């Protein structure tokens, strides 16, 4: 059914189909950065960090402020100024968000590590509301908007399908981050420590791994990715508001679950699929449900995966069940 619907849309208007797919891919790569944060933290603590989406939106708000106030960038600024400004705000957003996420863990979750499973989960929901209100306090209830810094003119086009600069930049910035993350987790000492801690914290501690520091590092890493995603979101959509992180966080979490939570490649795959589903639903002309129903579709998908295939697309079935 779904494949048929996509096929008919493809045949009716191939140019539109692929343009929408590019948008989906762009959104998907922003989701991927957020989803990786959920998956990293879940992998090591088995905790759904509800506050993660709000770390993302605070990172985005801060980078928007840096772009607006520190660099005073507009669409008319020179290319060099834009590149420098975006790079600096990327660094600031990443540093701020990792610090914030680590603090959240330190204040909120560390004391509850041996508490019943629901305790840290409920705390995470509370943390999310606190962070949202921090955003509300400093940035107010309105959208913070920047100029469209990266022109949405076509960089190049293949067969009538335009690849716009802003989409391209987002995808080009995401890819190295993902590769760096994979390298970090699979090939460094710190990554080995993370994997060991996620398998068995006690055994890891006995092998001389500093479990607390490893967990803090994981949160810092996840926060950094969320901060980067915040900046990319601002570049792509030019507006951000204090309460957007929660929604986006849920969508990204769905992506992480779709791919198989705890699985890095799965999170990216899930995020791209969710991004495409969203874009197709909102962008295609022929019999699409439209943006009014996007959330219902995404959450309906989430429920369906959890009920029918809780281990996700790439996850492994565990004996205790997911």
């Amino acid at each position, binding site marked *: 059914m779904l494949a048929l619907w996509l096929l008919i849309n493809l045949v009716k208007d191939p140019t539109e189909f692929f343009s929408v797919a590019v948008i989906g891919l762009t959104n998907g790569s922003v989701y991927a950065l957020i989803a990786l944060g959920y998956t990293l933290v879940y992998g090591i603590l088995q905790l759904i960090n509800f506050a993660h989406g709000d770390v993302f939106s605070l990172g985005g708000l801060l980078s928007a402020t840096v772009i607006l106030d520190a660099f005073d960038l507009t669409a008319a600024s020179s290319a060099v100024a834009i590149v420098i400004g975006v790079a600096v705000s990327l660094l600031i957003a990443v540093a701020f968000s990792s610090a914030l996420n680590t603090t959240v863990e330190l204040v909120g979750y560390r004391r509850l590590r041996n508490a019943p499973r*629901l305790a840290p*989960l*409920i705390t995470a929901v*509370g943390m999310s509301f606190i962070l949202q209100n921090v955003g*509300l306090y400093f940035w107010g209830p309105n959208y913070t908007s920047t100029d469209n810094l990266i022109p949405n003119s076509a960089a190049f086009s293949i067969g009538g399908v335009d690849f716009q600069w802003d989409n391209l930049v987002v995808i080009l910035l995401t890819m190295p981050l993902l590769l760096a993350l994979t390298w970090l987790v699979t090939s460094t000492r710190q990554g080995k420590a993370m994997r060991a801690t996620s398998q068995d914290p006690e055994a890891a501690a006995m092998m001389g791994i500093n479990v607390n520091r490893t967990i803090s590092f994981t949160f810092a890493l996840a926060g950094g990715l969320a901060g980067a995603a915040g900046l990319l979101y601002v570049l792509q959509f030019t507006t951000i508001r204090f309460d957007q992180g929660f929604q986006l966080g849920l969508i990204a979490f769905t992506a992480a679950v779709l791919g198989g939570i705890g699985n890095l490649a799965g999170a990216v795959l899930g995020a791209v699929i969710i991004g495409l589903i969203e874009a197709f639903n909102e962008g295609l002309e022929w019999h699409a449900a439209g943006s*009014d129903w996007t959330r219902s579709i995404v959450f309906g998908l989430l*429920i369906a995966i*959890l009920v029918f295939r809780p281990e996700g697309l790439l996850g492994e079935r565990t004996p205790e069940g997911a």
Partner: protein
Amino acid sequence: MSTARATFTERWRQLPDVVQRLALPALVLLLAILYPWYFGGLPGAFPAVETAVIMLIFTVMALGLNVVVGYAGLLDLGYVAFYAAGAYVAAWLASVQFEQVTFHLGSIGIVDTLPGIHISIWIVLVAAALFTTIVGVLIGLPTLRLRGDYLAIVTLGFGEIVPQVVRNGDDFGGFDLTHGTFGISPIDSIGFGNTLNDTLGLPASYQTSTNRAELFYLTALALLLFTVFCSVRLRDSRLGRAWIAIREDETAAAAMGVPLMRTKTWSYATGAFFGGLAGAFYAVFKSGAFPSDFFFNFSIFILCMVILGGMGSVWGVIVGGLVLSYLDREGLAKVGSFASDVLNRPIDVPKYAFGVYGAIIVAMMLFRPAGMIPEKRHRLEIDEGVESAAVASAEQGGDGRRGDG
């Protein structure tokens, strides 16, 4: 002075056991029933009767959620779905929404020829509660197999989907189910009709009565008492003990022969029942079901009441529900204006309401996880550790069955 107190204590001890046990609840109940009549003499910080009605309704919801979260230990982050379901059943069965049909059954205060379904609100309240129970079972059956945090996410998903369906539900192939973002309004008035008014003096219609707030207050209080009664009786029943067993250790409970799925589904159904009942009554009170009321935040707001009071503790959840709903409706605004006066600059406290609730949740989880008034069984565990002999001996002494928590 001290001798007077001593004789009083002695006299008190000599009173029959029943009197000692029931004196305090009876006094609280009396004060609660009479509240609308002495409220005028209290200082301004006390809630208005209209606010008190909402406080009571929200507390009913908190007690319903307490059955799911507190008793059975299943984290439900989508309780707002049940509230919405109850409110919309009330709106469907007692308004002009379905103008294609004209059906009247015991409705009051409207002409017989008015199109739409108009059923007596008393029946509607029961119907809404039962419908929501069915929704709860339908949501529960496929999802309750999931482990704790996954279940939380699924309920959250339902809590997001239901409001969106409600908001977009004004055009299902041309059929207007929910009237979209406008909501359904007005809902018929609750009351006893003219016949009962003439013979027994019961109020004919609440909405048109001069004592509107008082009537709603007393009815809401009756609903709360019913809910408290059910909560306490259920907790001490076979089913309630099975819930608590599942909460404490699912595997052990299953090994002891507790049927997990059926027991969990019952807790969901019970929680949904009260959510639907309270939701329908609230919609009747406001005379409308509006989709802007149904947001994820509301689920967390109700959850915060349960956590603040103490998960599983009936009296704690009542206090938590009353305190938080008071803060939400009047308290934070009053705190804000007080703080603005003292600090001499405007501080908009209600704007940060959910920051306050979030802070309450985190603080409670970190420093007092069992809540303000902990459930007795829970308190023993927290103080002594789960494996300690104190719990075992307390439970052997029958304490676990007839706890006050």
